[in-house]
């Protein structure tokens, strides 16, 4: 035990003392928001400055009114074949052919293009027709805009969750969606980055051949565990620094813009009893939800799943590292490890965040290989206690199993040099007696 502790210490110091750790730890919380801001800025600028595409159109109907907000429409007089020729020689984005059609049955409208248009381009053009036809129909039915406005009623359902104790909480699924997404992506990144580091560290030890010197002093299993735990503590430290940095930064930035951090504002509002009066304003709703999210609960779950998921995958990464002689060779064995991670990553967007209480989401968040990422996606949406408990127990069982499994491969693998390794060889190592 004492020796594992020495190895943990060594691994921890090795990583933490590196400049790359310092840079990543300090810069990532700064870079991510900055990168996002830049992207948003560029997107907005692009939209502002985009030159409108020119569309040539042949209109045989009576129901087309060129709307030039998105495109420039240039009429063409002549047959469709002539139009195609003109389109071919000119610098046009598309050729829009509008045959005669009935108001009730607008068919046969065709857009010819040289390159595939984006779905938004198509729907933009469709909307031009739809709006115009709607106006014409309203006119025919003697409905004016005013009357239509009178018919319109806006309904907004506010969602209040009642917990077992009868406490009421408002919730906003958009915020929970964001929290789930951030948690899931972060988990995916952490497992991958730190898992790969374990693997790399083990390959380095094997390549520099220091490993046999070490295992003459400690059991191979101790060396493996020391490495895994050492890197886990680096990951946790990094995560905690990020949390502190991000919350400090948010407070400072908001303070600079004359705002207060959501929680602070919330507390003041509650104090002053202004909350009720201010209700109804959207921004405040958001702030309210934000402050009502149980951050401690989410953070603690994240830490649990990070440690569990990391140990589970870390052991597998360690087994791969011990089996190969170079990082290039590791690729073939990475595949089966990456698959469940990728599945949970994609399921995060396709199932889990869309339908956090769907059958697939529930199972993905219980099966140990996918649960760290899947559960992070669901955690904001009030996961039933039994599911959380089952998932956690299975995760613990899962990492005990993978650690045992990896340990058996590791103890043989680290002493093998220049062996051609495939899955059969791995199985043989696994079965080998001490």
């Amino acid at each position, binding site marked *: 035990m004492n020796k594992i502790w020495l190895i943990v210490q060594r691994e921890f110091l090795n990583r933490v003392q590196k400049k790359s750790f310092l840079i990543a730890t300090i810069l990532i919380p700064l870079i991510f928001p900055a990168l996002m801001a830049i992207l948003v800025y560029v997107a907005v600028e692009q939209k502002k400055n985009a030159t409108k595409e020119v569309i040539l159109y042949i209109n045989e109907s009576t129901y087309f009114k060129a709307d030039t907000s998105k495109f420039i429409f240039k009429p063409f007089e002549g047959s469709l074949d002539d139009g195609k020729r003109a389109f071919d020689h000119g610098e046009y984005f598309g050729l829009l052919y509008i045959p005669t059609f009935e108001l009730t049955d607008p068919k046969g409208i065709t857009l010819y293009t040289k390159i595939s248009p984006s779905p938004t381009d198509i729907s933009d053009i469709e909307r031009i027709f739809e709006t115009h036809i709607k106006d014409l129909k309203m006119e025919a039915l003697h409905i004016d805009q005013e009357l239509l406005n009178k018919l319109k009623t806006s309904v907004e359902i506010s969602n209040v969750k009642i917990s077992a104790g009868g406490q009421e909480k408002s919730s906003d699924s958009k915020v929970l969606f964001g929290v789930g997404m951030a948690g899931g992506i972060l988990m995916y990144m952490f497992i991958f980055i730190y898992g790969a580091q374990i693997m790399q560290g083990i390959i380095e030890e094997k390549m520099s051949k*220091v490993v046999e*010197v070490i295992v003459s002093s400690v059991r191979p299993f101790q060396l493996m565990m020391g490495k895994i735990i050492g890197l886990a503590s680096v990951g946790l430290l990094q995560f905690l620094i990020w949390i502190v940095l991000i919350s400090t930064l948010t407070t400072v930035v908001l303070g600079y813009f004359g705002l207060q951090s959501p929680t602070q504002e919330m507390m003041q509002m509650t104090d002053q009893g202004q909350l009720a009066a201010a209700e109804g304003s959207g921004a405040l709703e958001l702030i309210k939800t934000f402050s009502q999210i149980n951050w401690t609960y989410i953070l603690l779950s994240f830490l649990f799943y990070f440690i569990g998921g990391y140990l589970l995958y870390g052991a597998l990464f360690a087994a791969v590292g011990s089996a190969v002689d170079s990082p290039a060779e590791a690729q073939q064995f990475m595949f089966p490890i990456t698959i469940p991670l990728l599945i949970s990553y994609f399921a995060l967007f396709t199932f889990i965040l869309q339908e956090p209480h769907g059958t697939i989401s529930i199972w993905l968040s219980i099966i140990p290989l996918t649960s760290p990422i899947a559960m992070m996606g669901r955690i904001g949406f009030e996961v039933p206690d039994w599911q959380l408990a089952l998932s956690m127990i299975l995760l613990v069982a899962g990492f005990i199993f993978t650690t045992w499994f990896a340990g058996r491969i590791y103890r043989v693998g680290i002493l093998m040099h220049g062996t051609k390794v495939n899955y059969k060889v791995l199985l043989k190592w696994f079965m080998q*007696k001490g």
Partner: protein
Amino acid sequence: MDALLVKGVTKQYANHTALDQVDIRVPEGSIYGLLGPNGAGKTTLIRIINQIINADAGEITIFGEKLNPNHIGVIGYLPEERGLYKKLKVGEQLIYLARLKGLTHHDAATRIKAWLDRFEIKDWWNKKVEDLSKGMAQKVQFISTVMHEPKLIILDEPFSGFDPVNAKLITDEILTLKKKGSTIIFSTHRMETVEDLCDHIALINKAKKILEGTKKDVKAAYKTNTFSVSHRGAFALQNGTYELVTQVKLEDDFLHSLVRMKEAGSPNQLIQDLTRVTEVFSFAEKIPTMSEIFITLVKGESHE
């Protein structure tokens, strides 16, 4: 007392036997050569003694005590596949390795400084291993093997990859350590080192020990009663007692012959018999070299 006693150690892998009922006995204070061709099982045996892998059967005692985790601090091991952490500094690295062997930080630092002093490389403490030359790294590696003052030192092919200067340095250190009371086991192919250093040897071939004993006894056992004679004037000594193995002409009527006595007898008798047929200039018993014994035995085995 024996520094190491190995009894009936067997190690079986899926498709081959690495060690088959191997017994060896290493007396305390000896320099013990573990010989054998590649793949004979030497490294497997050494790894079992170092508790890196477990034997399937058999018993090992070290200084009379059954092999246990406490022996890690008693043994100093230099593996054949050796290396150091490239990114770590020499001092840090040695302290880490010493602490894994069970030394306290303070003891480790004191001893390592003494060793660096001894090898006149004091100023390397803060150098990274990747900045050292290969020869320099070898010295550091050797220090890591002996810094915890092990009573039993096991060196697997210690001279492979070491330059002659370091090989000499290490040979000297081995002798010093022996004088201080350490027992040294090393495995090697290099027969000249065996001749120079070892007092005991064991030969392992194809997972089995085929020979063990003091160097003197082994050589005596493989004596062929052959004598090397330089003489003037050819002779033909072919009879019931003697066999003329070879006779080579040198310059000016000088010849060199190997004469074997068919049954062990007195060399005086041979000299007397020789002086009757030729003029003897030199006469010596031909003692087999370790290399000859090694080749005879290993070849003999593989011809079976």
